[in-house]
């Protein structure tokens, strides 16, 4: 069994929950691309932490890299999480509200 088949199998397993049609070549490759894009751009973005501290940057990159590899098919999970149901949307909106307020209040007074 080569690598591609393995990946297809993993994606099929992850997509079992939302039986949204069949798993085709195109959908597999786009899922793969999205996965790699997500992880690599997150890692590159984390390098910007060097402005705060170098050690923190190295630790954060390593932690995120290992976490991403362990939780590998991230994209199907993300897609399921960011779906169109109103409850999820309001939940994330309220969460974002809390984060924004806390960051502004705490961050501006302490940075």
């Amino acid at each position, binding site marked *: 069994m080569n690598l591609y088949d393995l990946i297809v199998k993993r994606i099929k397993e992850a997509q079992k929950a939302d039986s949204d049609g069949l798993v085709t070549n195109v959908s597999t490759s*786009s*899922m793969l691309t999205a996965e790699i894009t997500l992880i690599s751009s997150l890692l590159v973005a984390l390098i910007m932490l060097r402005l705060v501290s170098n050690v923190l940057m190295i630790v954060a990159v390593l932690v995120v890299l290992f976490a991403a590899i362990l939780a590998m098919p991230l*994209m199907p999970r993300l*897609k399921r999480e960011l*779906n169109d149901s109103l409850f999820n*949307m309001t939940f994330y*909106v309220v969460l974002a509200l809390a984060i924004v307020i806390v*960051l502004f209040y705490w961050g501006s007074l302490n940075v």
Partner: protein
Amino acid sequence: MNLLIPLMVIVPIICALFLNLLHKKDRTIKAIAIILALTLPLLPILASYGIHYFGGYAPLAQNPTLSTGLPSLITGTVLNTFHPAITYAFQDAQKLFIFILGLVAFLAILVSLFETKRPSGVYGFMMFMGVASVIALLLTDDIFNFYVFFEIMALATVGIVLVSGVKGNYETALKYMILGSITSPLLLLGIALLLGVTGNVNITDIIASLKIGVVDPKNPVLLMACGLIVFGWLYGSGLPPFHTIKSAIYSKALPHGAALLQAFSVFTLIALGIIILRIFSYLPFSQMIILGVSLLAMILGITMALLQTDLKRMIGFLAVGELGYIGIGLGLGTAYGITAGLFQAINEVVITAFLFIGFGVIYYQTGESDIRKLGGMMVKTPLVALLVLLAGFAMAGVPPLNAFQSKLMLIQASIQAGLPELGVIMILLSIVTFMTFMKAFHAVYMRPKPADLEIKNEKIPRATILSLIVFLVVCLIFGLFPQLATGFLQAISSNLAGGMP
């Protein structure tokens, strides 16, 4: 006083009301609607720069006839410089923004007139109303007036979605309204806090009172206000966590409606982003938040676009992802970065409208937007396929089209600001954007045609082709002569980058 400045808002409102009065006579009403829509891009070209005071007068310091005889309690204090009216400022940046908005609105209305075959009615009303409110958002210097038109724009957005007749539009509109009703009062709360601290709703006056020390800039209430206004900004422009609902809204509107809706959200992003930068640029934290949210929007928007199977939803997510580029330009905070971000905003409005209307031809012909059921359209419409391909090149940033220039500027700006990582991410995501586009393009045009795909409307309206060509010309002009656009943006961005002492 310059009379054309208020007319820019009033004319679309009158158009909206007037077109609804006329009924039945299809041909004449179509002609009238086209002529009225043509005034939208023409008015900003004709108007000269200036400031208009609605229902009031200039500040006392500039108004000697009024200020004579007033007690020194008023003229001797900071009250002397405050604006007692709703102020509309029309400068060079606004000229460019409103011209582009007017152009996109004109073409979207033109296409809708020929594709929907119902020249008057709620759809046109909502389109004109939305355009009027977005023009007001760009012009206004009064933050409460901003809120009022923000709400009108949200209602117009809902209206455009409601009348589209796409399956599931009512559900999406209701979700959008529920989220909006949570968020807009919080934006109002932010404005209330700002008003409570500074006693003013005029942005210039708020900045002045922060600058001369009437108000302590490190007041925690102000920080809270900034947080709430940033939250409203996320909602208005569709950055995360609102990217799912915003892209759903685009996908449930008709293609020409979606072309207009994405212009609304991009210009809301610019208008409120400029306000946040003007008032709160002394907080380095506000720029960091803008950068972070924009990065998240880019990554989430573009990776989610890859996974979609609905054509309109895919472009909707791409549009949200492209918003991130604008946000990065604004968040960098340097004059060059802000110019690049605003330039990218203009390019994005044009390109995304181009893509929506271009792929909208498919929807018009087949009534289908699921890419798994489409295919083989290249044979039917080779010209449109070529134009759409060029639009995709423009979105990915291929020279000599316009987004190449603005993305290049953005990358240079991020390197100058000492954050080359942002440039790397932008290049990476541009490539993925192009791949997403090619996936859709291949599925729609190049694959063999499925047997059960039936074509309902054989003939493409000539107006659609015309508007696509106009978009292409605009892309080429801005791509070959970027200084045409950036020249208009220099003043505002050096102002914004100067910031507060």
